[in-house]
């Protein structure tokens, strides 16, 4: 760390989602829709066409009655850092730099007015966190009144995705600057889903800041190739080398195992593959 030379410490905003606490109620999904002016259509039952920046997946353990078990897994954008900071699957492929990795916050942005809709980023994202505006967004007469001015509604033909409510970060930073502060308190910048979750299952903060709860919850274990010390912690598809900033906690083994692909007789997670 170059702490001595510069005051600027890079932030790495991340999320820890406790799947033991998550009840699958769907509040995070709606909080996100309401916060981010996400459009809706008459029929949203085709999930392949339904824009849900935050999507709650229902996982089952595949066991027969009565050994069956169900777990819900909220999936925002993972804000992947890739194997070297910034080499997210999507950022590396966007031909027009319409999506970018912020070194300051670790957040993967999406610039709707830059995007020309090639959808390459969607093909690159194994989490299906990216959504295309197949239709013009239309609000029933009068309903456009609730649209927030902090997030611009997207036009047809572009890709959108979870931004970790980046506008809230900007808002919080503006406020802090006005008050002459350079650093944000943990609770000043929280995503809409984190704030809404009735179960308090989502924790959000700067993974690089030891004062923030998230950094403690998934504190890396240097002896174990940097995996969190917490044995219940895992990330989705870690083996692909996407290096997500969203962590999950589960006390159930089958849930943790559902987070990644394993060969039949594979017990331990091997080191994730590296890409040059």
């Amino acid at each position, binding site marked *: 760390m170059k702490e001595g030379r510069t005051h600027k410490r890079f932030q790495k905003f991340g999320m820890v989602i406790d799947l033991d606490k998550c009840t699958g109620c769907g509040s995070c999904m709606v909080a996100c829709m309401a916060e981010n002016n996400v459009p809706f259509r008459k029929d949203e039952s*085709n999930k*392949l*066409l*339904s*824009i849900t920046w935050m999507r709650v*997946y*229902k*996982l089952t353990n595949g066991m027969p009655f009565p050994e069956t078990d169900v777990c819900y*897994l909220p999936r925002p954008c993972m804000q992947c850092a890739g194997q070297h900071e910034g080499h997210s*699957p999507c950022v*590396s*492929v*966007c*031909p*027009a*730099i*319409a999506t970018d990795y912020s070194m300051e916050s670790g957040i993967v942005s999406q610039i709707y007015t*830059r*995007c*020309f*809709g*090639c*959808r*390459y980023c*969607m*093909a*690159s*994202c*194994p*989490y*299906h966190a*990216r959504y*295309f*505006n*197949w*239709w*013009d967004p239309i609000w029933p007469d009068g309903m456009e009144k609730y649209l927030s001015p902090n997030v611009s509604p997207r036009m*047809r*033909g*572009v*890709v959108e995705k979870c931004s970790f409510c980046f506008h809230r970060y900007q808002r919080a930073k503006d406020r802090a600057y006005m008050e002459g502060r350079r650093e944000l308190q943990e609770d000043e910048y929280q995503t809409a889903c984190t704030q809404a979750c009735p179960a308090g299952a989502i924790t959000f903060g700067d993974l690089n800041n030891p004062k923030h709860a998230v950094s403690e919850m998934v504190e890396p274990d240097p002896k174990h190739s940097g995996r969190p010390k917490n044995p219940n912690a895992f990330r*989705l*598809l870690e*083996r*692909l*080398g*996407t290096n997500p900033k969203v962590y999950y906690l589960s006390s159930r083994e089958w849930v943790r*195992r*559902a*987070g*990644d*692909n*394993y*060969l*039949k007789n*594979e017990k331990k997670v*091997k080191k994730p*593959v590296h*890409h*040059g």
Partner: protein
Amino acid sequence: MDSALIPRGVKRCPLWQFLLFIGAAGIVLLWGVYAMFLCWFKGLNQTNMNDYYGFALWIWADLAVIAVGGGAFFTGLLRYIFGKDALKNIINYAVLIGFICYSSALLILAIDIGQPLRGWFIFWHANVHSMLTEVAFCLSCYFGVLTIEYIPLILENRQIDKVPFFHHLGHNMHEVMAVFAATGAFLSFFHQGSLGGVAGVLFGRPFAFREGIFIWPWTFFLFTWSAAACGPCFTILVTKITEKVVGKKLVKDNAIELLAKISGWMLLTYTIAKFIDTWYWVTVLAPSQGFTLMDFYSNNPLYGIWILITEIAICGLVPAAILITPKGRKNPVALWIAISLAVVGVCLNRWVMVLQIMAVPVMTFDNWVMYLPSWQEVATTILPGAYGVILIAISYRYLPVFPNEAELNPMEPLPAEEAEEKSVEPSVDLEPELTPAEA
């Protein structure tokens, strides 16, 4: 009526027949154009693509026409750089087919993107790390090269040639064609490769992801290689179809055989490389990410292991074996089979590298996703076919595409105006219209 425009020494069908044919293909073209405008004005909701299937039929068609259009650069490379003179009799046609393929590819891309009016952002705001940027640049440049290569042929039209300026221009362009061929080959190497790279760099998609050297994954080289191998097969295939349709021989056998032989060896080496790549992927790369081969090929109604076998064995080894043996490539039936299989093989490869990538689930709790194109997608995909048929028909009628044609088909003393004309890409519904009026 249009006899003044028809090249000397060759026979063409009556004008009404020609117009009827153009009209028939034109209807298909218009259907495609209508669908294209629907997509532009109403948006991509006209397709059956979705958030899982963000790449679909069009991108496959794009990759496929570019792959089979690879005949142009590879034939040009052989003709102008390696000095395979026998190929001069097929090079015009190879260029024409290439021109059609690449212009189609650009058109498809213009329809495929969600914001066509912002398409130029790919140049203006280019991300040099993106394979797609590389594709866009090389594709556009190479299309320019193909246009330059096609222009001299246009200038050879009987009437245009009469203008001294155009005559000299055409002559001079021929002189420097080697430079363009070299440029084209260079550009092609990159964009064919980067199209392969488009899939290969997707490290979030274990089905597509490959390691490689520097920034290029193995698929980069495999794509170039397969385009070089199968592109000429497509050139031969279209030539053969054209010959069948017009009912005369247009290209000498030595040119065809030479091209077939080279293709055969390319295909063989490609297949071996592809096999090694697949082997490594199956035994090392995919398992390191927790996948076994059959994870990619089961639990779905379409993408079975048959695809891999068809691609590598039936459409790789079989045609390669036929083409590298003199007996095989000299046998007309065997040659037909071989070039058809090779073309099917490369198209299948592109299909897999677009659609199957989208279909395979990566998260353990995701499902296989199947997709069926909408009619708008089908129409816009057929659109380039109809356009190709028309451009070939017009070029064939008015331009000396086949230098050997007159020699191979000596004219009766009577300067009869009827000639046969026809062309084609494998467009089945057009066949009835093409029944030769007879020479």
